[in-house]
């Protein structure tokens, strides 16, 4: 089974939020210096799922990423974990694009690959939390998409069964291939790359494609970012003055009703 996995490089989500700065004038987030970006967590789950399917059914796993020069490290990490090939889309006009454009670019890249039976993506990226790109890819490629999923069963060359997470449980769906699945973190624990993998990744050749290669010159964004800022919240504490606890309780209830909270 030939699988394509889309990965995104994001700032390390373990960094405490207070360490991030926002440049309001440029509407940009500035992560703290000296902390390397990492592979998006959900994408790592997707890659792990792909590798396990490959161990089960054979085939090839190709990883695709859209991003600047540093995204190459994420692709290398994917190869170290066991991916067979990687493709890097790197073009200034595309690197900071919105979800729609990103989806178009990735779909175009995937179309250029030989053959695939399944596309696995993380359900969302941990920096933007949009959750749109993978669905957009499926639309562009005319594939059924199921997201977010926590389990894959009964995988064969034509179909597989998935558990899709819903608000109070999950659905079991049989999906005919080719298809696209959005993977959630409940699915698995991504593996740590063996040393041989790390060495192989260091030697790997990763082709770089531009917007021209994908036939995507002059793409306009559908979403415009107006303002990016950190909300300041103040906490005010008002202590209810009363002579007894029951009186305090009554006063508190009145206040809550006044504020239309109950």
């Amino acid at each position, binding site marked *: 089974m030939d699988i394509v996995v889309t990965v995104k490089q994001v700032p*390390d989500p*373990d*960094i*405490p939020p207070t*360490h991030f700065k926002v440049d309001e004038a440029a509407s940009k987030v500035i992560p*703290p*210096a*000296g*902390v*390397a970006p*990492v592979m998006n967590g959900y994408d790592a789950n997707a890659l792990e799922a792909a590798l396990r399917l490959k161990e089960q059914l054979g085939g090839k796993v190709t990883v695709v990423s859209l991003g600047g020069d540093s995204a190459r490290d994420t692709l290398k990490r994917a190869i170290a974990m066991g991916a067979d090939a990687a493709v890097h889309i790197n073009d200034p006009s595309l690197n900071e694009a919105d979800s729609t454009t990103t989806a178009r670019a990735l779909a175009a890249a995937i179309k250029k690959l030989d053959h695939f039976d399944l596309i696995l993506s993380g359900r969302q990226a941990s920096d933007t939390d949009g959750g749109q790109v993978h669905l957009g890819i499926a639309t562009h490629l005319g594939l059924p998409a199921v997201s977010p999923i926590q389990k894959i069963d009964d995988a064969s060359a034509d179909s597989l069964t998935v558990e899709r997470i819903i608000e109070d449980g999950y659905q079991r769906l049989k999906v005919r291939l080719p298809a696209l699945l959005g993977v959630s973190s409940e699915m698995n*624990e*991504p*593996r*740590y*790359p*063996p*040393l*041989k*993998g*790390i*060495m192989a990744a260091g030697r790997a050749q990763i082709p770089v494609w531009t917007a021209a290669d994908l036939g995507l010159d002059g793409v306009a964004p559908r979403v415009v970012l107006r303002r990016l800022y950190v909300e300041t919240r103040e906490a005010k504490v008002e202590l209810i003055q009363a002579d007894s606890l029951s009186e305090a309780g009554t006063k508190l209830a009145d206040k809550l009703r006044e504020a239309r909270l109950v």
Partner: protein
Amino acid sequence: MPTRQIGWNVGEIAFAVMYVLVAVQALVLGYAFTRRYLMWRRGRDYAPIDRIGERVRQTLAVALLHRRLIRPGYRYAGVMHLFIFWGFVVLFIGTIIVLLEADIARPYFGFSFYQGTFYVVYKLVINLFGLLFLIGLLMAAYRRYAQHLPKFRRSLSDDAIVLAILLFLGVTGFLLEALRLSATRDAAAPIHWVAYPLTLVLNGADPSVLAAAHTLTWWSHMLANTALLVYIPVSKLAHIFTGPTNVFLRATDARAALPLIANIEEQEHFGAARVTDFNWKQLVNFDACMRCGRCLDFCPTFNTGKPLKPRQLIVEVGAYMNRQAGLLAGPAGPRVDEAGVRGHELVAPDEPRLAQVPRVAELIGDVVSEDELWDCTTCRACMEQCPVRIEHVPLIVEMRRNLVLEQSRFPQELVSLFNNLERNANPYSFPASTRADWAAAAGVQELAAVADPGELELIYWVGCMSSFDARNQRVANALAKILKTAEVKFAILGKEESCVGDPARRAGNEYLYQLLAQTNIERLNQYQPKRVVASCPHCFNTLKNEYPQLGGSYEVVHHSQLIQGLIDSGRLKVPAATLRDGFAYHDPCYLGRYNEVYDEPREVLNSVRGGFVELPRCRDRGFCCGAGGARAFMEEKRGTRISHNRLNEAIGAQASGVAVACPFCVTMFEDGVRALNVEERFAVRDIAEIVAEAL
């Protein structure tokens, strides 16, 4: 003229048979030890054997003086073995003396020395050592079967057989003497002072009955002796040869450093997945064990009911290795070259009738379980006690290396550890940029901000725990206060400091360790520190003993040594200690056993607190807190808690708290104190905190 007729009542046939049996014994010993030697040689290369003189001295000290056998806590066992060993050796020399007299001196030189004064002294001494031999054996039987020690709960038949044969030999030896003395009415009987009472008992019997009994005893003694010698290679007695060999071969300077994987990027194969992946010195390790169980006595995992029992690991791998050597195969048994081997059953892979037999046993998984490998805290209590210097910890780490570097099969918790070390240069998910935040508040400078680094006396290597963990930041602050009070010019590397790599290395991730180490060594070499002080024994050990492997040699001290030096030289004035407040001192494994720093922390406590409580398991017998070997980053799911075991010992010793010198110990004990609900009456303090409080 006191003497005896050599070979009284022994027929010619008996003697002829005796010499045939000598050839048989030599054949069996030659065969079996050659097989072992061939098996050892299948291991990888081992560094050249240097300092022969020192090695010989060490071996003789252990073998003859029993230097490692008789030590605190083991006086009974050490003396017991001394009696058995010297008893047997002297009795053996006695046999040689008789041989010299009968087969060399008389026939070739025509003179006899086995008479007169020589004979008297000889007999007095031989009887003494024969008696000591028997006493030693009885002490051993008592120890194994009557004392009910936990490590002897499961004894093998081999243990009983060995004791039985030796006792039989010792008893029949005296019996032979007594029977002869009685039957020949030897006037010199009293000088055979141990056999003499028995002689008196036998004196009434008919001489021909005595002679017949003598013949019977002579034959059974010879056959028992033959049985003993052919039993040696397939029993624990093999340690007679393999033990001293192992002592001779042990690395003389490898007290604390794990072996380096050189040129790691060019290697195809990592760690030990098969027995032949170990180097041949390590293979000798597996053979040297005679199951004394001292490695278990202070082992944290054995004593808390976890799967890892060092003795068992060594014995099982040793047995597996010996089965592969086909110790009992050969001309008499099936061939091993075309068949697979499972345990000691030989399996032909293509024979349909054996299709059900499982595959070849694997070292990791079948012989040694992965749980056992990950249980180890690398505390070295096993290696410290082993009389024949088996090195358990490097063997375990070698197998961990295979699991991590080659198979990528290891506990899930270590994935975050490795990822964090890679991304943040610390085992936690704190960004590296916040490493020096504690220092800003304490007024401690980072090296990068120091105008003239050459002026500094030392660099304080803070370590990950004291940099990021709130509880241990207090220790860093305390040490900073001490250094300032003593007017020591120092700085920290701060953001330029990365984890020394100890947890990665102990967990088997040698590659990650080397990456971290090389980064640190480059930085330290830039700054060329006069001295480095570390408040964490793991940092201390790695910086001091392991970085030289990669080109980083520095003068490194632990903060307890530094503080003691400051107090001694008068640079740090502490108020005279008045009250003893009953703190126990816990020896951190990486400070104590690994680096033999036992005294300085104690001297500090004496200066500042007027004393401390010495725990029963102290110094080289100290009981681990459970955090070493990257175990601090793994969950303790099996058995009981190691830290609780240690805390209960301290509480049992009526201590009001425990003084430690390691941030891992601090963390483990703080957690343990909370879990045991003794926060009110039991405190945990680092030595630096104790000193800083007194200033």
